[in-house]
């Protein structure tokens, strides 16, 4: 996606001052004839390096994950770990494959709750972040509350939320949103303030309205910050949804874990199957956010590594 800064054919010193090479703006390096340099070899070396980097980028994570599960599987055999303590990963996969409907059904419930909580937190944080970014008073008045939400363990007041909002989706949504809210809030305030001050002055010089500046400058500038928050919030949303199901639901992977914990001998596979599916859901969501980030933030320096 990224391209290096181009040579400026009009003013770049290198284009005019060096006499033993010519630059064609129509083509690329193929048209660069430099005495004593094998351009074809340089291009071939670049291609080899690009292939190696692609392999590193996609191959290394796969190798890391496979090595981890292979070591786990091996440890079960070598140390003869009983199944009720820690089942082998292959046994867990077989268990999930034996009852996929159970995991699809409960996984969908948890994913929906996590998605809703994530989305509600994002919208509320953007509204709150906008107010805070525009008003130092609101920021200073709200920040202690935001810190309190973050530092108080959600598990401590989750039962109170279930008492207030009742058993079911509403409570789980509140818990999940609360867990995701602060990272989105802090990053949205920082992001909305990250606009180049020269750009803001340019917008003022044509008397652009604050609303227009928000949509056309502040919000796009905040996207890199919001994506950073989203990567953190994906995991938090799943934590919130599972925790909510512990206290206020009779379905979902959190509830499946809770019931398995009550009967660990009989349901140890269900416990680990749920953990596997949750990990898979988090991984896929993170990949989706990464893909969206690459598309929407192709212009940002974070995407040009």
């Amino acid at each position, binding site marked *: 996606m*990224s*391209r*290096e*800064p*181009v*040579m*400026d*054919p*009009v*003013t*770049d*010193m290198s284009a005019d001052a060096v006499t033993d090479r010519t630059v064609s*703006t129509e083509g690329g390096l193929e048209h660069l004839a430099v005495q004593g340099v094998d351009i074809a070899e340089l291009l071939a070396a670049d291609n080899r390096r690009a292939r190696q980097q692609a392999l590193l980028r996609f191959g290394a994570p796969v190798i890391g994950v496979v090595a981890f599960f292979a070591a786990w599987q091996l440890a079960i055999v070598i140390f003869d770990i009983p199944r009720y303590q820690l089942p082998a990963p292959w046994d867990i996969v077989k268990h999930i494959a034996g009852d996929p409907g159970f995991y699809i059904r409960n996984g969908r419930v948890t994913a929906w709750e996590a998605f809703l909580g994530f989305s509600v937190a994002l919208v509320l944080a953007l509204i709150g972040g906008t107010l805070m970014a525009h008003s130092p008073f609101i920021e200073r008045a709200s920040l202690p509350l935001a810190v309190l939400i973050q530092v108080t363990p959600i598990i401590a007041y989750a039962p109170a939320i279930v008492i207030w909002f009742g058993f079911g989706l509403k409570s789980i949504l509140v818990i999940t949103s609360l867990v995701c809210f602060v990272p989105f809030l802090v990053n949205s305030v920082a992001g909305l303030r990250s606009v*180049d001050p*020269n*750009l803001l*002055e*340019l*917008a*003022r*010089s*044509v*008397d*652009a*309205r604050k609303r*227009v500046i928000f949509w*056309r*400058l502040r919000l*796009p500038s905040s996207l890199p910050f919001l994506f950073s928050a989203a990567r953190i919030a994906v995991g938090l949303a799943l934590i919130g949804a599972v925790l909510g199901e512990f206290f206020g639901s009779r379905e979902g992977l959190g509830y499946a874990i809770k019931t398995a914990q009550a009967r660990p001998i009989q349901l140890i596979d269900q416990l680990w199957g749920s953990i596997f599916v949750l990990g898979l859901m988090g991984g896929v969501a993170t990949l989706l956010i990464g893909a969206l980030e690459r598309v929407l933030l192709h*212009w*940002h*320096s974070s995407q*040009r590594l």
Partner: protein
Amino acid sequence: MMSTTMDDTAHRASQVDDGRGGATSASVHVSICDVHKVFRRRGQTVEALRSVNLDIRRGEFISLLGPSGCGKSTLLRVIGGLTGPDAGTVDIGGESPTDARKSKQFGLVPQTPALVPWATVERNVRFLSTLDQRREGGHAPLSDAEIDDLIETVGLGKFRKSYPHELSGGMQQRVSLVRGFALGAPILLMDEPFAALDEITRADMRYLLLELWQRTGTTVVFVTHSITEAVILSDRVVVMAARPGRIAAVESIALGRPRVPTMEDSPEFHEHVRVLRSQLQDHHA
């Protein structure tokens, strides 16, 4: 060549050149009258501008020259209505700076290119003119064909679809320059736009700027700390001094138009440079 120093020739300044440059009221585009500006911070005050008087003619290219902290950027921002004076008045063709800003009388070219990183070159040059289209009234921007023509003139025709991070610093500054002109505003305010560029690119940019200025007939207020740049570009150079920020002298440049690079070797050019350098040194605190 006309040169005056406000400090030692105050008694005749009003007759010869008090910054009004002999302009008639009909030809005056920007009139700055006894403007003061004081910055306050934690009980401390800095007199950024003291009793500044200056008339700028329609279509004139005027440079504000001076050391850092002499108030030249502040004066530019006061003219553009981006900050208000603490005393005195600024008149932009019969309007206050704030009203002139609302009627889109100003194009601004800042020191850094300040391009929108997620927009291509062709979207960047139109960014300000399309920023708040629903806001009615005001000066009309250039047409698409005229803007495309400007892009070609500055040598960016092949880079219309490029993003800022794909361009060199000089190319980014050319985008910023075209963006300033694309508004079609009658007054262009330029705040050391070439300060961060290397000398070769900078020299190239000066003549590109002159070409665009001559084509559009815009009134240009150009802030710089480069004497040679001020001389080769300007009709008049306003020398500013610091502590307090004030106009120390106004030098009319007696070089013909259009300006060409060979003029930089002429005795007249060097004489202007010598006089301006001497004035800057005289008023350097």
